[in-house]
């Protein structure tokens, strides 16, 4: 896989809420911590010195528990919240330099958002809701409606165009929210805990649908969640936030295999590692299995390798991306990988 260009670059972004954020931030830089800052100055440290690269066409998950600043961070990407310090580059352009008119145009065409509690307009029908972004942009009504109808079909809600949001179930309402975000043809979707309000089965359907849509449309998606399983399922890259600071970012497998600190390690402890960790990471280069041993690609999950070992093979050969055998993997090695604390 070739690394795609950086879509959104977050450089040293900090956010302090309060009357004199700049002065409070200076105190944090001088070493004051979050609790002390709140007690002594009444300022709340939302984010501190966040630096991230989000690549075009990936699903980038920002995760953390409530109050970690993830919702604050995602609102910086369309400037619903202004940073106290730092830069946010969108295709290399600093969006913080935009004036009101450019910011409006940017929000109308280049970035769209999906909300946790859907945030649909209750007095408008489904199709009017989906066309909302287009009508704000002055798109002529007939063509806005036609484009909205296409998106409604895409998310599987054809036939509900003239319903009102309150007539739909939660999952259907969030599909409307997704269709509304897709309708403006923005290449970045910001999803703020978009599936957290849905029940588990519906949530899983929506996750799969989102992956499928992203595969077809190639959007860049920034996804916020507090649910590690959701993060691991969806995220090409995952960033873990705590107390407004970035603890670790990388692929799900990286984070599971090499947690950067205790917090991350505790966080990922209960995850089903077999479903996330990849065979390639545990292949022993020195071990050359027999010629008739089964060959599996390096990006196979450990769980998928179980089936092959269950067939009786004492070892499997791991094939790298370039097609060469990189090493072998034994059941014992897999057990060690899963047992690692």
């Amino acid at each position: 896989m070739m690394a795609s260009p950086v879509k959104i670059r977050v450089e040293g972004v900090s956010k302090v809420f309060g009357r004199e954020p700049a002065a409070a931030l200076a105190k944090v830089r001088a070493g004051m911590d979050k609790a002390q800052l709140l007690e002594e100055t009444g300022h709340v440290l939302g984010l501190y010195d966040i630096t991230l690269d989000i690549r075009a066409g990936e699903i980038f998950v920002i995760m953390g528990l409530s109050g970690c600043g993830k919702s604050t961070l995602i609102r910086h990407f369309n400037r619903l919240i202004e940073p106290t310090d730092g830069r946010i580059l969108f295709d290399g352009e600093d969006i913080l330099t935009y004036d009101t008119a450019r910011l409006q145009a940017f929000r109308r065409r280049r970035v769209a958002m999906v909300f946790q509690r859907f945030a649909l307009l209750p007095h408008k029908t489904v199709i009017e809701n989906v066309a909302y972004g287009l009508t704000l942009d002055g798109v002529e009504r007939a063509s806005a409606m036609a484009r909205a109808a296409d998106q409604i079909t895409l998310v599987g809600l054809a036939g509900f165009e003239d319903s009102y949001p309150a007539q739909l179930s939660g999952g259907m309402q969030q599909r409307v929210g997704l269709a509304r975000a897709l309708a403006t043809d923005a290449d970045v979707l910001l999803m703020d805990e978009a599936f957290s309000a849905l029940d588990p089965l519906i949530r899983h359907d929506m996750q799969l649908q989102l992956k499928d849509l992203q595969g077809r449309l190639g959007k860049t998606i920034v996804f916020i969640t507090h649910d590690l399983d959701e993060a691991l399922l969806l995220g090409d890259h995952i960033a873990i936030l705590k107390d407004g600071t970035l603890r670790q970012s990388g692929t799900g497998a990286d984070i599971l295999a090499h947690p950067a600190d205790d917090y991350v390690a505790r966080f990922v402890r209960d995850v089903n590692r077999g479903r996330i960790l990849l065979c390639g990471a545990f292949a022993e280069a020195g071990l050359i299995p027999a010629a008739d041993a089964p060959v599996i690609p390096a990006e196979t999950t450990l769980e998928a390798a179980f089936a092959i070992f269950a067939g009786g093979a004492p070892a499997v050969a791991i094939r790298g991306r370039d097609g060469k055998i990189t090493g072998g993997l034994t059941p014992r090695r897999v057990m060690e990988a899963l047992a690692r604390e």
Partner: protein
Amino acid sequence: MTSGFPDLWDTRSFGRSLDAAFNAVVANWGPTLEMIFMPLLRLLTGIERGLQFLPWWVVVGMFCAFTYAVSRQWRPVIAVAALLVTLGLLGVWNDAMATIALMLAATLISVALGMPTGIAMSRSDRVRRAMLPVLDIMQTMPIFVYLIPFVMLFGPGKIPALLATIVFAIPPVIRLTDLGIRQVDAEILEAARSFGASPRQQLWTVQVPLAMPTIMAGINQTTMMALSMVVIASMIGAGGLGYQVLQGIQRLEVSRGLIAGLGIVVLAITFDRIAQSYGRRVQANLHREKA
């Protein structure tokens, strides 16, 4: 002269100079102000003459059509028709039309001025802080106090009656417009911003529609307050049902006062029905349950 409180400053001369200043305003500006407010008088007399000139069944028909248009239901339409016929049966039709004219003109102007004011209050805490005490004073100051300057400026008649009614009736629509807009779900407003809605688009596509049930409650209260002003306004020449009540007092005729009073009650119920049926429909649009 003995007084319970020492005379720390000369209230008499303050009162005298205030009166003198106001008299000067009346002398210099009276005719000009009368010219400025002429269109209001035309609006009021236009509505009044129109209602009194049209045959009663046309007026009833118009009210029924309006009620249906705002409520999309037949029950309030039937109620409104029955109430208006009752007014005719009470023998106070023409007076009731004059009262309706005053009330409608006052309500229209109150809404036209009050909604923008309420919107301005909802957008700026500073405007809100400045307006709240003004509204409190407008609502607690005895109404007769407004009548003095208005009568001095315009002489007894319909214009001072209309203006005093507006001052008395406008606070609810202002307050509830402000409240309704401030109560709009912040996440929906944030969604509108995230899709690039300008402040004006946010106002007209999100804030006003979602605040509409609350704003309607304010308009309803404004209507009721305007109606409750008619008896007092009749003292300075507004005519209508209030004038009949006033005459009932002056001539000690219980029947005249009672019938005109009932007429006012019937009018109040009529307008309340119309406003509430509209309010219910707006509310239902916002919170439609599963069909």
